[in-house]
Every structure is written in C-alpha cells, then in structure tokens.
C-alpha cells in the first residue's frame, strides 16, 4: 500500500531523529516508533531547530511523538541555550549563513556532547565550506558527527496536501518593484521546495505549465534541477529506496499554475466547514484561535487543533456547514446515549436488585465501562470543540450575512447590477471586505461591464468605507492579461469567460494552458505545454 506524502515525511523525520540510522523495516508511522525502539536501547538527545523547521516538525509531530523518539528537549536555534551535558544534539534548520554561524558558535561553546546537523534543503557548497572553516578555526570539527541534507522543506498539514510555507508569496511574485535577483531567489525557493516534495515521494513527474509567467520560470528551473540530479554521476536519490520499477514507470503529471489564472475562487465566500473556518479564523499549522464570550461576557481565547487524527474533522471538513451542524448534533446525541448506557450498567438502583445481579455480566460491564472511559472523555472533548467552533461560526455567519453572500456568489453571473449595489449599500453586512469581494467577483464574472456601472458601484463601495486598492489591482491585472492573451492568440478574445459559471471558467483556463488558436490541434497542445522527457 502506498503511503501518503505526510506519512513519508513523518518517516523521514523519524529517521532523522534516530540519527539517520538505517533500520531494517523501520516503522514509518510515528505511532509505531516505540515498537521499533523497543528492540534497541534509546539514545536521549535534544533537538534544536529554526522557526521554519519548527513549523515543519510541529505540523506532523507532537511533543509526545518527539519524546517517544528519544528527544528530551526541543529548542529554537535563535534562543539563548544552556549546556546539557552528555547528550547529543540534532540540529534541523534551513541552509543559511546565520544558521551556520549559530551552530558554529554552539559547538565552540561546547553545549552538547556531539552534533548531528541536518539541513531542510540542499546546503550550497559555499556554505558547507564556510561551516568547515568556522569549525576548524575553533578546533571543533571533530565534534560534528553527521551533516545531512534532508530535503524536507515543506509542510504537510493533510495526508496529500503540502505547502511550501511561503507567506505572502502572491504579493512577492506580483510586486512590480521586485528586482530580477530577488525574483530569481523567490523562484529558487519554490523550486527547492517542489524538488524536496518530489524527492520525498520518489517520483520524477511530467511537468506542465503555462507560458509567460512565474509558473513557466519555476517549471524551467525545476526541469533543469531534476535533469542535473538524475544525470549526475553521484547517487541518484530518486532511485534509492524507491518503489518497484513498474510504479516508477507510471509518472505523474505536475501541473504548475499561476494564482491569477483563477482569482475568483480565492475571493468566493466558502460554505464548507473547512473553508469557513479558514476564511474566518485562518487555519495556521492545523491550529485555530477562537475568541469566545462566555456567560459573564468575558472573552476567552481558545486554541484548537484540527488535524488528520480527528476522525470527525476528516469526515466533515469538506461538507457544507448545515450538514456539519447536523453531524455534530448526531454525534452529541450518540455520545450522550452511550454514556448514559454505560453509567446505568455500572451500578444498581436499589438493594432489591443485588440478589438478582449476575456477577459475571456485571463485572464485564464494569470492565467495559472502565476501559471505555478515557475514549469517552476524549470523544466528549472533541465534540465540545466542534460544537464551540460551529457555534462561533454561526455567530459570525449571522453577523456578516455570509449565507446570503454565498448564495449570491454562486449565481454571480446572473446577478443584476441593482442587487449588487443593494448588497454593497446594505448596512447589515458588517464587514466591508465582504462587500469588496462580492463586487470583485461580480466584475470578474462580467467582463462586459460598462464604465458607468462600474463607477456607480465604486462610488457605493467608497460610501460603504471600502479600501479600493484591491479593486485597482484586479483591474490592472485584467488589463494586463487581456493584453497578453490578445498578443498570444488574437483570434481568441471573445468566447472566453462568457459566463460566471464554472464551465466557462474551465474553458478559458484550457485555452490559456494550450495557448491555442484553435482547440483541436494536438500539435498546438504540445507546443504550448512544456514537458520533461526522460
């Protein structure tokens, strides 16, 4: 059975925590690490990481998982640390000059017994030389036991979803004042991240990307990097420990797209559980923070974990919110029923029943009650958490009239200008950004808007107190895209984005991808798409 990307990342991290020792049949799942460590004595170590690697680790491993793998203390590289005698230290960080400096300083201060250095991505040769120079200068290079490139510089919040943990990448990539070197650095960072993902999955994909934007640059460089690595004389990491040759021959397709191909889906108000939570509470590293007012009116801030271990979350995340509310209700009732049954079974209500007690049956029931107690407590906490989240979501939905907005946006192509202006002017919709989003969606869906209509709407937005900077940007972007597409394919100008419905959007995407003048030519498709051939 093939593992998900997340499981593979966990396996790689656990292997790193065991000092990169090759264990025959090492269990990839962190939960089984205790059984794999049962046969051999543990080695207690400390883990030092920078903030990026801390996020990588904390997304997939909890404190107890680290402890089970022998990590006693974990600290940030940037914090002031005291020496801990007689324990080795595992360092996990990004390859940067500052980090190298910090590690060298640690080693010269003799904080730990031995040092196992792991870099999240490939360490450039210059930095390796710098590291060697610094440790040699302090006479401590013999204390470095290992130096490894782990290729784990990405986050894996869900089983098959990864993120390069690159905050504000859209802004960075579209910043007109970016210099070429800065843009190159950004693209390199993306390429490194993707390379690590592919290496973890041990696949060499066929890369497809549209021309003319950042996606093309990333595709080109990733292609070059992969070729260099595979063709180079040294060990090919893709074939080490890879699955059988048959699986290797089935190459997946890596599709790289620029975000502005479809801005609309970013702006739409979501109606699924996960979408709503992310929109309203911003899920960061599988955690959210909710401010709730209790009965006394006091506001308490609570943080919740939402991860793959929560079966309720996994089942209900993609469902629409009303269905989730029903599920929570059902789960809560089922729990109450079970809890009542168990408490009822555990005791007798009157002395008359004592003589009628079947000792065997009652002990069994008591045993079942005792063993199921921790599971019931955990389930109750889980249901309470989702209940709290759903309640606060409901409050926000009512406050911002998100259900109304969602319904309007679903039919955005058929909305009239009057209804949009009415929504903008509606004081009951409290969040001005919601109004802005609604209008931008309307604008994106209706390219043929007259200038007068647009002015009227913008005036309404201004009255409502919106900041029109985003609108100006979207207008500029659209005009640029129109210019590009008119240069690339002059005959395709009409017919694109005819309506606001999804089918229309897909046809415009496919046109852009192919860069075609007509839709049916195979040669046209091939010429428009870059492929990586072996």
């Amino acid at each position, binding site marked *: 059975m093939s593992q998900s990307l997340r499981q593979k990342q966990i396996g790689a991290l656990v292997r790193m925590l065991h000092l*990169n020792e090759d264990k025959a049949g090492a269990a990839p799942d962190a939960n089984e690490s*205790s059984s794999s460590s*049962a046969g051999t*004595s*543990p*080695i*207690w170590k400390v*883990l030092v*990481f920078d*903030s990026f690697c*801390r996020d990588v*680790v*904390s997304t997939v*491993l*909890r404190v107890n998982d680290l*402890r*089970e793998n*022998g990590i*006693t*203390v*974990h*600290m*940030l590289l940037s*914090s*002031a*640390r*005291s*020496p*801990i*005698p*007689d*324990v*080795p230290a595992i360092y996990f960080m990004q390859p940067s000059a500052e980090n190298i400096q910090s590690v060298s300083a640690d080693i010269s201060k003799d904080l730990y*017994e*031995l040092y196992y250095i792991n870099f999240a991505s*490939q360490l450039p040769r210059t930095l*390796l*030389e710098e*590291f*060697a*120079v610094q*440790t*040699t200068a302090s*006479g*401590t*290079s*013999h204390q*470095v*036991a*290992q*130096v*490894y*490139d782990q*290729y784990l510089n990405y986050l894996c919040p869900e089983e098959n979803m990864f993120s390069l943990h690159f905050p504000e990448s859209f802004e960075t990539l579209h910043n007109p004042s970016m210099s070429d070197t800065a843009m190159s650095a950004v693209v390199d960072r993306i390429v490194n991240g993707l390379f690590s993902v592919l290496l973890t999955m041990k696949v060499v994909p066929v890369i497809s990307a549209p021309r003319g934007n950042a996606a093309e640059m990333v595709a080109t460089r990733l292609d070059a990097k992969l070729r260099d690595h595979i063709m180079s004389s040294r060990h090919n*990491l893709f074939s080490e420990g890879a699955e059988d040759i048959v699986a290797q021959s089935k190459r997946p397709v890596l599709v790289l797209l620029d975000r502005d191909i479809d801005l609309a889906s970013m702006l739409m108000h979501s109606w699924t559980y996960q979408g709503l939570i992310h929109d309203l509470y911003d899920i*960061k*590293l599988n*955690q959210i*923070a909710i401010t709730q007012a209790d009965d006394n009116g006091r506001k308490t801030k609570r*943080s919740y974990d939402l991860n793959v271990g929560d079966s309720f979350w996994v089942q209900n995340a993609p469902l629409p919110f009303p269905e989730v509310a029903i599920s929570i209700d059902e789960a809560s009732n089922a729990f109450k029923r079970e809890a009542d049954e168990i408490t009822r079974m555990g005791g007798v209500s009157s002395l008359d029943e004592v003589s009628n007690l079947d000792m065997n049956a009652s002990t069994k029931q008591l045993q079942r009650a005792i063993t199921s107690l921790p599971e019931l407590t955990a389930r109750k906490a889980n249901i309470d958490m989702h209940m709290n989240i759903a309640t606060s979501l409901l409050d926000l939905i009512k406050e911002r009239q998100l259900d109304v907005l969602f319904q309007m946006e679903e039919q955005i192509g058929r909305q009239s200008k009057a209804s949009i202006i009415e929504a903008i002017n509606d004081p009951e919709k409290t969040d001005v950004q919601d109004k802005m989003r609604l209008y931008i969606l309307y604008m994106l869906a209706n390219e043929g808007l007259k200038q007068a209509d647009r002015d009227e709407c913008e005036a309404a937005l201004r009255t409502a107190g919106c900041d029109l900077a985003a609108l100006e940007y979207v207008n500029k972007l659209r005009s640029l895209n129109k210019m590009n597409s008119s240069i690339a394919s002059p005959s395709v100008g009409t017919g694109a984005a005819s309506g606001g419905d999804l089918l229309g959007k897909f046809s415009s995407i496919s046109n852009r991808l192919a860069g075609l003048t007509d839709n049916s030519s195979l040669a046209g498709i091939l010429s428009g798409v870059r492929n990586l051939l072996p």
Partner: protein
Amino acid sequence: MDITGDFRKLARQETTKRQSSLPKGQKDLGRFDILPPRRPDFSHPEGNAFLAEAYIVAKHLQSLRVRIVDIRPAYLNLQSRSHARRLGALGTAAGGGGYGRQSSAKLSDPERDDIDRGIKQAIRQMLAKIQSLNELAETTLENMPNDAREELENAKVLFRRLLGALDPRNADAKHDTASSPASQPGLPMEMSRRDVLAAHQSSVIWWLNSLLQKTNKIHAEMQELYLRQKLERQRNLLSQQQQQQQSVASVARTTSVSDDKHSARNSDQNEILSHLSPQELKALQTENQNIVLEFESALDQQTEQLYNEAVGALDAVDKGNDYLVSARKNQSSSRKWVLVNTIEPVTDE
C-alpha cells in the same frame, strides 16, 4: 543525503592550510580532523549519575519487555500436552530447534502463576527504580552549582519574561509562527539552565514510565486473553457434556417417569461435578467435612459461653437479694437506736 564526507574533506583541507601557515613551534598541536569522528557510548555517560542510571533502567525495561513477548506463545498455548509434544517433535525434525519447542511448550497453571508473579515483581522493581531516579534528578538539580553568574542569568531571564508580558505590542500580536506554545514544540522564550536540565530529566523519566506502562499493558492483556480462552474452553466442554447428559436423559426418559425426575435432579449435580477429577472431588469432600466440623465446634463453644454467663448472672442476683435483706435489717436497727438516743436525753432533762 549524507554530506558528512564532504564536510570532513573540507575540514581536513582547512586544517592543513592553517597548520602550514603556523610558525614551527605550534605545529604539533593535535590534529583532531584526521581522527575518526568519535562516537562516545551514550549509554554509559561518565560523571552523569542520573543518565547512567536512566540508561540502566531502560536496558532492564527493554529486556523485561522482550522476555514477556518471548514467553507469550507458550503462555497462551492451551493445546494438550500430547499435541504439544507432537508439534515439538515436528518442530525439531524440521530444524526449528529450541524455538519451536518453546513456542509449543505448554505451561501448567502453577508455572503461569510463577511467571506472572515474577513479571509483576519485576515491574514493581522497575517502578521503584524510576521513583528513585526521580529523586536522584531532584537531588541533582538542588546540588547544581548556583554561582553568581547563574543567579544573574536567572534574573535576566525573569526580567526579560516580565518585560515580554508587559509589552503592549504583544497583547494584539497576530497569531504568527512564534506564538502559541500550547501544542507546538519549541520551548517559548528563554529558559534558565536549571529549567532546561529539569525538562530534560522529566522527559527521560516520562519515556521510562511510558515504556513501563506499555510493558505492563502487554502483560495484563496476555493474562486477560489466557483467562478468556480458558473460560471459553471450559464453557465449550460444559456444553458438550450437557449435550451428552441430554442424550443420556432422553434415553432414560423412555424407561420411566420417576427415573426421569431423579436423573433430572441428579443431572444438575452431575454436570457440575462431572468435569472435576476424582482427586479434586475427594479434596472437596474432605474440605466440606472440615468446614462442618469447624462450624459444630464453634457452635458448642458459643453455647457453653452462654450457659456460663447465665449461671453467673443467677449467682449475682442471689447475692444481691441477700444484700438487700441485710440492708433492710440494718436500717430498722439503726432507726430504733437513733430513736432511743434522742428520746433519752429529752426525758433526762
């Protein structure tokens, strides 16, 4: 990808370069880079009593767990001896050797009890060792040299924490990657040397406790499984015998009705007694007789006690009566004497 080799090569080159630029007098300093990287034996730390003891406890826990896992097949083996012997023979014939024999060996109940007792004792010892390790950890922390520099460092850490707490910028700080230490790893802020050592020690003890709990759980599950299997087996035997009895009873039913009732009454007793061996039956009988004798003697003693108490009570009552009579007499004579004495002086005057 392992780039340790590249690193060592570069370090060697660098050291060579440095050595060549040094004046002659300093060139004979030890060249550490040419030595193989030393990997100390982490499980035997010198001068660290806490860690050394912790590694020893861990080793014992591992071996205990391995022992339980090894004995599990034999423990749970409910097959008859002959079947086990046959399997054992097959095992040895096929070259399975001692392991095959061990896996098919049948343990008797007293042997199982011994094993259980041994394991429980070992677990208790391990628990005691972990407790003492905990105390050792506390002692180590207390004996940590707290010199002036350390005090200053602690004070600085506290001061920085206080400032951080009072900083208004932190109050509305966005939920960024550096905040919310609740469930993220990465210790927040700075920790003093003592705190770090305490965290390190408590994690070690946590690991040992966790392994002990898992080991105990394996053993408890093993016992539970064995008892359940045994109970299941006995129930199957019982049901088989019930069926036999019923077939016997159905044959007897064709002869006479009274025989039916008798056999029905007896069959209840028989099905309980039938699965007991004759020795066990005899033992039960002698036990029953002993219990009866004990009860009888106890009853006799109690009756005698009651009788003696009753007799004593009667004597006491008689004596009491005598005292009362004599008291009345005394009272009457004293009355007369008082009367005489008071009247006489009056008549004399």
